[in-house]
């Protein structure tokens, strides 16, 4: 069994994301053989020209979507923390959609059952959105690594001027 802090999920660097939707297209293609963002497990949000991010499942601990399902259709994988959907049990009621703070679980436009990121478990090279993102804005990381990155960024910002001088020959 994998410990919670070793779980990897797809995270986005908002500074790099340009909102191009390649992740959406590639996800929908790999999962459904169609170019159709509505069938993508990752979705781009563009609030104004400056704000773009792609959002997908964060593999929460004690996932609210699982807790919210009245038909026990959702479970969390012990192996890697992804949310598993039992399509026979799911009736598309939408409680899980309401429970998710990130909008990462959604209703399939045709099958009328919910679907969510499974980290491309059938692909040996991992999540295809990460592989295809032209801006390298997506990454498969653990929460620990994310925190490391944040610490480094914060430190860099604090010492921007000092870093500049120290790198000048």
């Amino acid at each position, binding site marked *: 069994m994998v410990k919670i802090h070793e779980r990897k999920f797809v995270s986005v660097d908002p500074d790099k994301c*340009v909102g191009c939707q390649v992740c959406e297209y590639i996800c929908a293609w790999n999962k459904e053989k169609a170019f*159709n963002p*509505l069938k993508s497990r990752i979705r781009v949000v563009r609030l104004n*020209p400056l704000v773009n991010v792609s959002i997908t499942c964060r593999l929460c601990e004690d996932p609210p979507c699982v807790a919210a399902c009245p038909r026990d259709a959702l479970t969390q994988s012990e192996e890697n923390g992804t949310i598993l959907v039992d399509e026979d049990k799911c009736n598309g009621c939408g409680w899980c959609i309401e429970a998710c703070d990130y909008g990462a679980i959604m209703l399939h*436009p045709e099958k009328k059952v919910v679907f969510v990121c499974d980290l491309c478990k059938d692909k040996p090279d991992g999540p295809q959105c990460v592989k295809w993102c032209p801006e390298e804005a997506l990454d498969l990381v653990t929460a620990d690594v994310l925190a490391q990155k944040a610490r480094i960024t914060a430190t860099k910002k604090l010492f921007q001027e000092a870093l500049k001088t120290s790198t000048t020959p």
Partner: protein
Amino acid sequence: MYGYAGRVLHVDLTTGKTRIEPLNEDYAKKYIGGIGLGMRLWLDHSKAGVDPFSPENPLVLTTGPTSGTVWPTGGNGHAFVSKSPQSYGIAEAKSHGSFGTELKRAGYDAVIFHGKAERPVYVWIDDDSIQILDAAHLWGKSPAETEDIIKEELGDYYIRVAAIGPAGEKLVRIACIINEKSRAAGRCGLGAVMGSKNLKAIAIRGTKDVTVAKPDEFLEFVKEFHERMKGPATKKYRTLGTPENVLVHNALHCMPTRNYNNAHFEAAEKVSGEYLNDRYVAKIIGCSSCAMRCEHVCVVNEGPYKGAMARVEYEPLWAMGPYCGVDRLDAIIKGSELCNYYGIDSISAGVIVGFAMDCFENGILTIKDTDGIEASFGNHEALVKLIEKIGKREGIGDILAEGVKFAAEKIGKGAEKLAQHIKGVEVTGYDLRCLKTAALGFAVSFRGADHNRHGSYAFDVKGKFNRLKYEKGRAKAVKDIEDVYTVIDSMIICKFSRGTYYKEFEDLAKLYTLVTGWETTPEEMRLKGERINNLARVINVREGLGRKDDTLPWKVMNVPIPDEGPSKGAYVTQEELELMLDDYYEARGWTRDGVPTPEKLKALGMDDLIPIVEAKIQKA
């Protein structure tokens, strides 16, 4: 049918009726999509001599064969086609973003808007359900506000909207159609055509799947192009963006400055791409499916224009900057923001203000005429105020909103000589006096003064030809590049990606084959480009345009470049222009009047259009 949704939607705004017909497969093969298909559909559904603002003038919206696929820069475009209220010839304008993808997923290759609504309306295309909804509450609003309200009332954040602003409603002749708040189908005044139909906006939701004929090879090709797009061919767009041109053009003395009074701007450093990137670019973003990303979003953080935000490209920057003698980027960003707000073409807006400033300095317009605005070159406050007045059609803005050609006719007193336009469409940022290959490209461009119809300035700027002298035989190069450009605009891939198609027609043909499954050779692709150029010409011929309209602005032909430097003394003589046109018509296989011959049309498989040209040739 792969690559096409296979359906054309007709919306009659007069009767409120809609109908769907299958896409003519022959048209798809011959005219590809985008502007090619759009122009053909417009021709079929309009009468010769129709007034641009008449309900009888259809407005055509099209997508391309790669729309809705993940093709980099191609998945996202759309085109509008109609008759231009500026040139009274064919008008086309493209835009990118995500609007085109949505239309394709809704299941349409084209939408044709006929007639005129009694009251302001917007059209809501929700897959197969088409509704014409009241837009009284949206009238007077900017495209961005309109988009937000429509998303709110239809209750879906992912609905895509293209809308006109207050300028389109008031039939400002340079009005554009803006989708996703900041992307404009800018040139030729199509926003005014939309306004004349009382059509405020088009909202689309598409849920259908898009697939391609050969997905595995297609995705391989996509991957390859992602790599190409990170390479040298697009470096400019990814770093400084098109504003890089400012210093390049200035060094060559080919940047029209102060309404063509100069070809060189002494304060160019202050409006350069370098300066812009350093101080104003807040983020660079991209369109749907594009790996390149070019959209330099600029924010003003201090001073009188604090808070202004807009995307900045070379052309609008040049038009509102050097062309008006303005050396302040914050004012240019504010001007761009206002253009987005009112929904006007920011290139034309800048050129019109430059024209007004020239009139002012020559005493043709007095301070009384300009409603108290000190419209001298370099006055950034005047720039901002005049753009506002054009957008509102208020005071002097009511005259200027007609575009420089018609405004000059109204003003009189020799203003015509200061009106820098071709076929009624305002010039763009290349001094044609010292770029002689570009001068030909501009003169024959079917939608009026425009660098984007041919890109033949590249031959001059990059030094392939002697830019100061026109030589016979050069028209072949112009023709060839025009044919590439019409294919690009009919596939609707982005112009900025053109350098990544290393083998041009070969790569384009491969892409078209992979998407549609129709085996297409590079030669057939080239023929499609040639065909679409001939189609545009046939339309213009039908509308009464000809050799007399393939001309250059007055100053280009009468005022030599005064600035000391590499372009001094250059201008285009009448003899040179005649030589250019003869050379070009010959390369195209047209008559000396610039009319496509029946033989040419036959060779291109457009026999059905022969009666149009025959009538004109006999007359002549």
